[in-house]
C-alpha cells in the first residue's frame, strides 16, 4: 500500500504543478515574446503592451532575432471556435472540444486550480471548525460537550448533499460560497477525532502538570494537547479533500458549481448530459481526472493512516 500512497503523492504533486502553471501549459498567450527588441512574458505580465499586435506578426517577428514561444496547447479555456464544435479528440485538440468549440484539455488544465483550491480550502475550514468544536467539547466536557454532541448528531442525520444544494441554490454559487458551504458541513469527522483525543489526553500527566503550573486553558489546548491530536486529523483531512473535490464536481455537474464560463471538471462533464449519444470524450476525460485525483488523495490518506497506526494494516 505504501508504494501506492507514493504514487498518489506524485500524482497530487503533478496536479499542483499543473494548477500553478496552467497558463504555461495551455492558453493563447505566448509564454515569452521578443518583439522590437523588448522581452515580454505575456502569461505573467506586460500583456497589454502587446495589445494590437497581430498574432501572425508576433510569430514571424518584426526584425531579426524576434520570436514567440507559445504554450504546448495553444487554446485558452474560454476561447470558442464555432468551426470545431463538438469535435472528437484529434492532434490539435487532444481531448476534443465542447459544444462551443472550446478545447476540453485546456479547460481541464485551467479547472485543476479550481478543483484543488476548493478541496484544500473547504477542508481547511472544516478542520478549523472541527478542531475548535471537538477540542472544546473534549477539554471541558459537561455542558459544552452536550451541545457539541447534539451538533454532531444534527449534522450526521442531515442529508448533507441536499443541504449544500439548497444553500447554493439560494446564495449565488461563487467559488467562495462553495468552499464555505462544503467546509461548514464537513467538520463532524474531524471534530469527533479531536474530541476523542482530547478526552484521553485530558487525563495524561503532562496535561495535568501544565494545568498545575497555571497555564491558561487556551495555552494548554493549543500548545500541549493539539500537537498530540493532529496526526489523525491529518488523515481525516486528506480523505476530506477527496470528498470535497467529489462534492464540488457533483455540484458543477448539476449546474450549481462555479458560475460559467469558469472552467471546472464537473462543468465539462455536465455538458455531456446534452450529447449522450456520441460525445464520449466529454465524459471520459473530465471524469477520469476527477477519479484520478480523488483516488490519489484517498491513497495518500490511507498511507498516512497506516503510518500512524500500524495496527489497522
Amino acid at each position, binding site marked *: 500500500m505504501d508504494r501506492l500512497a507514493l504514487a498518489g503523492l506524485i500524482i497530487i504533486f503533478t496536479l499542483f504543478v499543473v494548477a500553478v502553471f496552467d497558463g504555461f501549459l495551455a492558453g493563447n498567450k505566448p509564454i515569452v515574446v521578443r518583439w522590437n527588441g523588448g522581452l515580454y512574458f505575456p502569461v505573467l505580465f506586460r500583456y497589454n503592451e502587446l495589445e494590437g499586435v497581430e498574432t501572425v506578426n508576433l510569430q514571424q517577428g518584426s526584425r531579426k532575432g524576434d520570436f514567440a514561444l507559445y504554450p504546448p496547447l495553444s487554446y485558452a479555456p474560454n476561447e470558442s471556435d464555432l468551426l470545431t464544435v463538438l469535435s472528437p479528440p484529434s492532434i490539435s485538440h487532444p481531448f476534443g472540444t465542447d459544444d462551443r468549440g472550446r478545447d476540453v484539455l485546456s479547460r481541464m488544465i485551467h479547472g485543476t486550480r479550481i478543483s484543488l483550491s476548493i478541496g484544500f480550502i473547504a477542508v481547511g475550514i472544516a478542520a478549523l471548525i472541527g478542531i475548535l468544536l471537538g477540542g472544546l467539547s473534549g477539554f471541558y466536557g459537561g455542558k459544552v460537550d452536550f451541545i457539541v454532541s447534539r451538533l454532531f448528531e444534527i449534522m450526521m442525520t442531515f442529508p448533507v*448533499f*441536499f443541504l449544500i444544494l439548497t444553500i447554493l441554490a439560494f446564495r449565488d454559487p461563487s467559488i467562495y460560497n462553495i468552499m464555505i458551504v462544503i467546509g461548514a458541513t464537513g467538520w463532524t469527522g474531524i471534530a469527533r477525532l479531536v474530541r476523542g483525543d482530547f478526552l484521553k489526553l485530558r487525563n495524561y500527566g503532562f496535561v495535568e502538570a501544565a494545568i498545575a503550573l497555571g497555564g491558561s486553558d487556551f495555552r494548554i489546548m493549543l500548545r500541549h494537547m493539539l500537537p498530540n491530536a493532529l496526526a489523525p486529523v491529518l488523515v481525516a483531512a486528506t480523505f476530506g479533500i477527496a470528498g470535497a473535490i467529489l462534492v464540488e464536481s457533483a455540484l458543477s455537474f448539476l449546474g450549481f458549481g462555479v458560475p460559467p464560463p469558469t472552467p471546472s471538471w464537473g462543468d465539462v462533464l455536465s455538458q455531456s448530459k446534452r450529447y*449522450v449519444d456520441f460525445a*464520449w470524450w466529454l*465524459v471520459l476525460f473530465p*471524469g477520469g481526472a476527477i*477519479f484520478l485525483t*480523488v483516488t490519489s488523495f484517498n491513497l495518500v490518506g490511507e498511507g498516512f493512516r497506516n503510518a500512524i497506526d500500524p495496527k489497522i494494516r
Partner: protein
Amino acid sequence: MLDYILKRLLLLIPTLFGITVITFLVIQLAPGNPVERKIQIEQGVKAEAITKEIIEQTKKLYGLDKPIYIRYWIWLKQIFTLDFGLSYKDHRPVIKKIAERLPVTLSLNIISILLVYIMAIPLGVLSAVKQGSLSDRLITFSLFALYSIPSFWLAMVLIFFLGGGDFWDVFPVYGIISPGVDDYPIYAKALNFLWHITLPVVCLTYGDLAYLSRYQKGSLLEVLREDFVRTARSKGLPESKVILRHALRNSLIPIITLVAAILPAMIGGSVIIESIFSIPGIGQLGFESILSRDYPVIMAISTLTAFLTLIGILISDIIYVLVDPRISFEGRR
C-alpha cells in the same frame, strides 16, 4: 433498559429542534422570496412589474407576512401532525407528493442495500481470512478504486456505452418502466422494471459496497484477534467453523447497525442518480423543488430524512445493546 431508551428519546428533542431550526433558517433567510417567484411562474410577468397589492395578498395567503419566529412556530406545530403544508408549485399537500414518490426511491434503495450486504460481507470475510494474499490485495485495491469513482460519472459512462447512441443499446436510460406496459402480464412488468432500474441500482450500490466490505474486513480482523477465537482454535475446531460460527457472527453486529447511518447519504445519492435517469422518486422531487424554490417540499424532505435517520440510529443502538450483552447501557451515551 427502559431508562436507557427513555434517556435516548429525551435526547432526541434538542437534536430535532436543531434540525428543524437549521432547515427553516436556511430556507427563510434565502434571498429571492417565494412570493415573487410564485407570481412570476403563474402569470409569466417580471417580478418588478408586480403591484404591491398582489405581493401582500400572496404573502398573506402563505402566511409570509408574519415575523420569522412566529412562522417557525406555526410550521413546527403543523409538522407534528405530519402536515407540511401545500406545495407552492401545484397547491397539493406536500406529504402526499412525498408519499407518491417514496415507493420508487425506497424500492431502489432497498434493492441496493440488499445487494450491498450480500456482496460486501463475503468479500470482506474473504479478504480478512486471506489477509495479505493476492486475492486480498486484489479485492482491497479494486474496492478502493470503486470507492473513488464519482457516481454521476459512472452513470454517464454507463449511459454512453450501454444506453444506446453510438455504442451498445442494452439498457433503457429513462424512467422506471416502459410506457404502455400496463397490459403486460405481471412477470413481464416486473422484468421491465428490473431492466429499467439495473443501471441506477449499480450506481447506487458500488460506493456503499466498497465502504461496507472494508468495514467488514476490519471488523472481522478485530474479532479474529480475540481470546475466544484462540480458544476455539485450540480446542481443535476446523478453521471454517471458527470463522463462520464464532468470529463472523460477532463481526456482523457493527455492520448491520450501519444501515441507519448511511440513510442520509442515500438521499443525497438519490438526488443525483434519480435526476440523471429521470426516475420519479424523492431525489428527483427534491432536486426539482430546489430549482423551483418550493420551500415546503424542501423542508419536508430534509426534516423527514433527518428524523428517520435519528430514529434509525436509535433503533440500531438498541439492537446493538440487545444482541451484544458485553455492552452495557451505562457505558453508552
